[in-house]
């Protein structure tokens, strides 16, 4: 009975850990993506300010940030919520509560043994052998573990199945946040990748403008340094875009690891190998518990 109740546990624990890792990577990469584009937006604005200062001066109302505090705060809150989701899943599917239950049943067994040794109790009840009490406590432990496993697996299965769609929506929306640069005809561009690509483009032209306008005033070393920046801007433009694209891949991976988590609970011990693994897992736990009673 215990075996069937604990069917998904070993798979789920591994997959929750994998989901948690994927989540940390994806959220930290996405946060970096936003910060990078925002920081480069600031640098682009500075480059434009420097180039246009003689004609336009500085307007203190110029927006120097790409993102508003609210856009970032909402995403940060979402990431914290997801992190909490992974932590709570790991907490429930860990052996912590089963260990606590083992400790409680052990204490219960000790109390029964003590009661059994009480002279007054012996007089009013037929004394049970200590072996019988150990067997009874082991049975209580096995039944209790079954209920714990059954309850948590049923509850967690329902929750992660319900979360399949929201997780997909979250990942897809974050992927859409990052978007893509426009093609050669100017079509299809959106999100952070489009913004980033344009920013580097503007920075490149600002740098060219700076060199053109100051060609006669710059000393050779400064001029060489300014010119050397041009290919590095183009190179960085491509590197940042590839990094943003890689971030989208980590989000796709996150979606996949959550799907794997759902699958862990969909599987009803499909292979003999899994059955044996689960049998060993649960059998060992019950065996260890029984041995721990004998040692006391």
């Amino acid at each position: 009975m215990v075996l069937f109740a604990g069917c998904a546990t070993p798979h789920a624990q591994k997959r929750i850990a994998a989901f948690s890792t994927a989540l940390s990577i994806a959220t930290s990469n996405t946060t970096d993506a936003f910060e990078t584009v925002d920081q480069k937006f600031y640098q682009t604005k500075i480059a434009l300010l420097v180039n246009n200062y003689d004609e336009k001066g500085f307007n203190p109302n110029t927006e120097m940030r790409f993102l508003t505090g609210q856009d970032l705060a909402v995403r940060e809150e979402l990431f914290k919520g997801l992190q909490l989701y992974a932590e709570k899943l790991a907490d429930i599917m860990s052996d912590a509560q089963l260990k606590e239950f083992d400790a409680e049943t052990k204490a219960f067994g000790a109390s029964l043994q003590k009661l059994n040794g009480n002279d007054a109790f012996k007089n009013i009840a037929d004394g049970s052998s200590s072996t019988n009490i150990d067997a009874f406590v082991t049975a209580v432990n096995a039944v209790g573990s079954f209920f714990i496993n059954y309850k948590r697996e049923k509850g967690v299965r329902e929750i992660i199945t319900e979360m399949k769609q929201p997780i997909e929506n979250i990942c897809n929306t974050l992927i859409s946040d990052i978007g893509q640069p426009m093609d050669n005809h100017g079509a299809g561009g959106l999100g952070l990748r489009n913004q980033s690509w344009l920013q580097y483009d503007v920075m490149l032209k600002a740098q060219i403008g700076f060199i053109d306008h100051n060609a006669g005033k710059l000393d050779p070393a400064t001029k060489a340094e300014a010119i050397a920046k041009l290919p590095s801007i183009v190179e960085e433009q491509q590197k940042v875009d590839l990094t943003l694209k890689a971030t989208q891949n980590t989000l796709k991976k996150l979606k996949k690891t959550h799907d794997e988590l759902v699958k862990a609970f969909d599987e009803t011990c499909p292979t003999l190998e899994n059955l044996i693994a689960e049998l060993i897992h649960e059998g060992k736990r019950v065996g260890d518990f029984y041995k721990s009673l004998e040692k006391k």
Partner: protein
Amino acid sequence: MAKELKNELTQQEVRDIFGALYKDLDDAYWSATTIVDKDRISGIQGAVFDILTELNKAHIKSNTEKFKELISTVNNVNKRLDMLKKDIDKIIHKIDVATRVAKTVDKVLTQAVKYFKI
């Protein structure tokens, strides 16, 4: 009707229109041979960049609204996980109660034997 639909451009269509303009200006910029021409073109391109920036911002902002709804879903699920953990704790707590009962019975019987012949 069809005319009305045509007038309502999607966000992406608007981005594409300005994107195409930006690219055309880009071609013109790289073809220009004088600093004056380059300055003039990059000046206009700068204005298109500002518009595209606003459109990219609008896209992020529309996603922010979607995330607000998703946050409440995640928070609700986290509350349900808390409740599930509490339910499991109740099973553990029941054994704890049984232990306390056994201990109390032991204690009562130990004291009772002093006063009654049991």
